[in-house]
């Protein structure tokens, strides 16, 4: 594992850049624990100071240091993404593996549910949820809902792999070795889909964080928790853009863009690592 990581780092530029970016972001979010004041507090520093020596990234119109605000925002945003990804991975793995391995009726029922989740318009549902939960829509709850809505596509992907694994001879070999379906799924098939899980995790994080940002900016989340989205929300509330407080918007946008690009690069690099065919085409232009 570590060796793969080292090799990827050494020989895949995308992975290296992605790792660099993501580590910077992670580093920043860790810094949030050293913030001199609680990130929710306002009017703790002079408002509207442009980036300067004292405040590297400037201060907001709410009297917060953009730097510390951003570290907290990045931390929460990242945690959110990880939470959604982790929960939805568990769902999609379970459904994908079970559906692919069991086949038949189980498969059909699960896939009908799955298709529904793929087709139904997500955003309206999220907005609806926001209204059902009304104002108690917390960060964790949102993560849960997003996870519940964001597994379907990947489950299909995993299912298709599991289906092909089912027909492979080694699966029959396992059955005749007396392994139970659960053992086969977890011990034999899981390792196969893990790389997919890994790279979809990053895509899923990208997706959920993007959703969170969008929802927050539109004011559909808990804006008390500092996240990249709620930072933008507050900036918009203070017409930061036209008021010339560009640094309030620019830094979080840059940070979130970097985060997305970083995650995306990691995902592509991993995908490439997984897919043997693109390994070959890397060796030199195909034509």
């Amino acid at each position: 594992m570590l060796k793969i990581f080292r090799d990827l780092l050494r020989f895949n530029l995308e992975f290296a850049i992605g790792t660099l970016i993501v580590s910077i972001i992670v580093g920043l979010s860790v810094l949030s624990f050293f913030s001199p004041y609680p990130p929710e507090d306002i009017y703790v520093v002079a408002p509207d100071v442009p980036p300067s020596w004292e405040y590297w990234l400037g201060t907001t119109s709410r009297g917060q240091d953009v730097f510390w605000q951003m570290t907290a925002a990045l931390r929460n945003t990242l945690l959110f993404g990880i939470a959604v990804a982790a929960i939805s991975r568990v769902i999609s793995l379970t459904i994908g593996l079970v559906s692919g391995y069991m086949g038949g009726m189980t498969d059909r029922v699960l896939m009908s549910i799955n298709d529904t989740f793929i087709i139904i318009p997500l955003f309206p549902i999220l907005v609806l949820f926001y209204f059902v939960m009304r104002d108690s829509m917390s960060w964790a709850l949102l993560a849960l809902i997003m996870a519940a809505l964001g597994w379907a596509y990947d489950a299909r992907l995993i299912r298709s792999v599991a289906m092909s694994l089912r027909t492979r001879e080694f699966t029959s070999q396992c059955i005749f070795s007396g392994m139970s379906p659960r053992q086969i799924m977890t011990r034999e098939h899981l390792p196969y889909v893990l790389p997919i899980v890994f790279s979809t995790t990053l895509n899923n994080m990208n997706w959920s964080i993007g959703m969170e940002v969008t929802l927050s900016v539109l004011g559909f989340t808990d804006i008390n928790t500092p996240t990249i989205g709620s930072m933008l929300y507050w900036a918009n509330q203070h017409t930061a853009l036209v008021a010339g407080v560009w640094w309030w918007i620019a830094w979080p946008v840059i940070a979130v863009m970097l985060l997305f690009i970083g995650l995306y690069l990691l995902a592509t690099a991993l995908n490439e690592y997984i897919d043997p065919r693109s390994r070959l085409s890397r060796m030199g232009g195909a034509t």
Partner: protein
Amino acid sequence: MSGADTALLDVRGVSRSFWTGGLLSRRRIDAVKDVSFTLTDARPEIFTIIGESGSGKSTLARMILNGMNPTSGSIAFGGEELTTIRKTRDRMRFMSRVQPIFQNPFESFNPLSKVDRYLTMTARNFTEARSRAETDDASDRALRKVGLSLAEVKDRFPHELSGGQLQRIAIARALIPGPRLIVADEPVSMVDASLRVAIVNLFKDLRDELKVSIIYITHDLATAYYISDRIIIMRKGEVVESGDARAVLDNPQHPYSILLKDSVLSPDVPDDDEPKTIERDRAARSH
């Protein structure tokens, strides 16, 4: 074990059909049509099923392994109807007595798992062995029967072993539960000539020394002739000819059997002045 006159395997009038085809052309395929034969426990034998591709050999094998139900007819193993074997316990008991060997040695093992895992799992699930030492011992004993030892195999991944070794490990695994019947579906079609001989020689030994019956499915008339006791020839799901292997192959009766035998290219080169089979055919055709 059951008495001398109990049938080990009794296949009675078994048929199986499938629906296949593209969207615009759907048709019924009778993969297996009314096949019957019996293996007795008293006299272990190598029972060969031969036939053109798509003639239903693998389908028949899957039904014997209880991986699929016949559309009509019945299969009994040791006097017990396979359709009644549904509960996990019954299945385990069945599997301890009937074991498969697959076509492609490289495919029969999960490339991500160590090969000895299959041996250990089989030992744990089908024998009394529980502790590590016991399972190791069971594995080693089985491996020795096929000319290997646990030391050579332990902690190795499939890609570290040759096809011949892998196929022998697969056979060893099948032997661990002490089965009465081994179903081998084209166990040699993916290996080259020299390996082929080694594996069929092993089958002979199993029959002679361990008294295991073997259902040997193949295209290869030459190896069939070389090792089998009885043979059935299948075509389009039907048994067209059956009987003592050598007798049938030396003197086939059914037109298809004759065609089959004629089509087998002999590795013997004719004398200089004599035309080769293919030349003969060509000449025959151009007239």
